[in-house]
């Protein structure tokens, strides 16, 4: 019994960590590449979830179709987001990006409350309450799918960044925008692509998690601060770093929560973050957009 308890906690932690990673991935790309602090990140996640809710209940789309559709829509939103707000910002405009995205976050969250009310909504799927058992441990099916989707997204991002020309351009840009310009990389189009992918990932996270958690306009705020911390600790722009940090955080929270009062688990997370940063200020895995 004690054996499976620990293993179950580890499994839970892994899943929670992967969820954090899925949410933080988009932020890591945008923050790492453009140096833009996107405080509205949690709200794009929320919008993805709300859109999935309407897609399933009003348009009667299936589980996988919804996820695909919402991701594509989120990508389009990314185009608008970039052109309307971010194209005029430079990496030095740190503070402007903070206030701008803070304002956008307020508009999205409170506009959402106004339009949709805070009544929590459930996104129905055929797999909502099914679970698989692996040797005494339980794993709900939807979470298994989440693991799969997050892994697929991560692999896709990896392939993009390491094996395509455009990915190389992104990596170059994050290292030095001047040098990148000198070799003919167009800052604007690469940045725009990064934003599109980043927002699309947030939308993907929202759509994937919409059936797992209850959907309501304030659902983004629970994750936003942790996502920021994960991104910085993983190393700015370092996607793999963020993913690994996220998983470690999830496991840490699960283990502590499993043996100590739950409230200690939240503090433990933040204390761990502070300690890590004190010893490794550039993050655990170093900066720069890479995988």
């Amino acid at each position, binding site marked *: 019994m004690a054996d499976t308890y620990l293993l179950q906690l580890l499994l839970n932690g892994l899943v*929670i960590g992967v969820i954090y990673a899925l949410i933080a991935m988009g932020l890591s790309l945008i923050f790492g590449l453009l140096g833009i602090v996107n405080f509205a990140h949690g709200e794009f996640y929320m919008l993805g979830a709300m859109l999935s809710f309407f897609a399933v209940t009003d348009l009667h789309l299936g589980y996988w179709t919804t996820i695909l559709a919402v991701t594509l829509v989120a990508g389009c939103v990314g185009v608008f987001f970039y052109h309307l707000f971010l194209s005029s910002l430079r990496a030095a405009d740190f503070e402007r990006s903070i206030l701008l995205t803070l304002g956008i976050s307020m508009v999205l969250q409170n506009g959402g409350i106004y339009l949709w009310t805070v*009544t929590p909504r*459930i996104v129905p799927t055929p797999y909502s309450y099914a679970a698989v058992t692996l040797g005494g441990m339980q794993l709900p099916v939807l979470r298994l799918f989440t693991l799969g989707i997050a892994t697929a997204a991560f692999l896709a991002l990896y392939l993009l960044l390491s094996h395509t020309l455009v990915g190389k351009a992104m990596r170059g840009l994050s290292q030095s925008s001047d040098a990148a310009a000198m070799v003919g990389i167009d800052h604007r189009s690469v940045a725009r692509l990064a934003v599109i992918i980043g927002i699309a990932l947030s939308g993907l996270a929202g759509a994937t998690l919409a059936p797992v*958690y*209850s959907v309501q306009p304030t659902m983004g705020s629970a994750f936003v601060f942790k996502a920021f911390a994960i991104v910085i600790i993983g190393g700015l722009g370092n996607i793999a770093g963020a993913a690994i940090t996220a998983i470690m955080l999830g496991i840490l929270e*699960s283990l502590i929560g499993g043996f100590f009062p*739950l409230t200690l688990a939240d503090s433990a997370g933040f204390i761990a973050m502070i300690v890590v940063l004190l010893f490794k200020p550039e993050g655990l895995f170093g900066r720069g957009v890479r995988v």
Partner: protein
Amino acid sequence: MKSLLVAVLAASLFATAAMADPPPIHIGSTLPLTGNLAFFGQHSRWGTELAVAEANAAGGVLGRKIVVDYQDNQCNPAVGVSSVTRMLSDKTDVALLDGVCSSVILAIMPVVQRAQVPLVVANGSATAIADASGVGGNIWTFKVNPSDASLVEALVGWLQTQGKADGIGFLGEDTDFGRAGVQAFEQALGKRGLKLASVEYYQQGTADFTTVLTKVQRAAPKSLALYSVGADFQNLIRQYFSMGLTIPLTGRLLTDQIPKEILASGRLNGATAVQPYTAEIDLPANHAFVTAFQKMHDAPPNLLSYEAYETTRVLLDAIKRSGTAEPAAIREALTKTKLKSILGAEIEFDNHNLAHNNAVIVMIKDGKVQVVGLSKT
């Protein structure tokens, strides 16, 4: 000549119109409309809106329409004080409703005392509110919802008759609501020589309960008391279900928030909870309320909407009896309240300006929610 006639006609029409519409009665309401407690604020507001709409449809109070100004306090005492002082500054509001968050209510109590305007609380849980009100304290504050201590006392009393008061584990939100719940349980159990098997708190806004549910599953208390609301409660119940837990549930279950499939599955059968209200209470007045609420807001009422509805009725009744709709007269009238609640009990305020409405004990049997007891708090 013709233009003079027209002018006279217009003037007299205008005069009659002005005479026919007496000025409305203004009430202020301070609620958390945004942030983590927006769910409380929203339902509280919906309950008040229904009560006001019903009163206005019946011709208003004292022949005047009721107008409520709902202002957001973000569950933050500073914002609450600022929004309330602003509302009271133009002296049109004759009374204030609510607050929802206890710390906000405690912060605005001195403000309403200075402004001499009655404050009627529907949803705040801190016992400090009633303790500081009424005789020897703040005579302008009134509380309609029963204290958690009395609700849980009723529940534990019931559970004991069923032999289920032992080995209760607690899982609640880390707010004054949740903490009040633990205190209430410890008090009620302590009187009977029992105690809680375990206590766990989660942060409000937590989406993922797998860690704590795994822990609870292993600790295996005889039953689990839940003190949870809104999206948190929904997430908790859904994850409880999909993880296959079978520990009997008790505490303050929001039975109307449980997804239908989970209820129908029968896994929750035997769960016993206490609430100040549940939509399933089989009384004609309640059925009328539920239908009207559903029609107005396209969602079923819960305890928050009910408490706000009842509290607004109490206030409107007091305004009517005051005759003048002046704050001091309304306060007087409130102290003499004797109003039949839609649950059949009589609402009146004790000397700490606290009302003692009924508590409802519900049980889930055969996949359905049934009321098994109504007791005075």
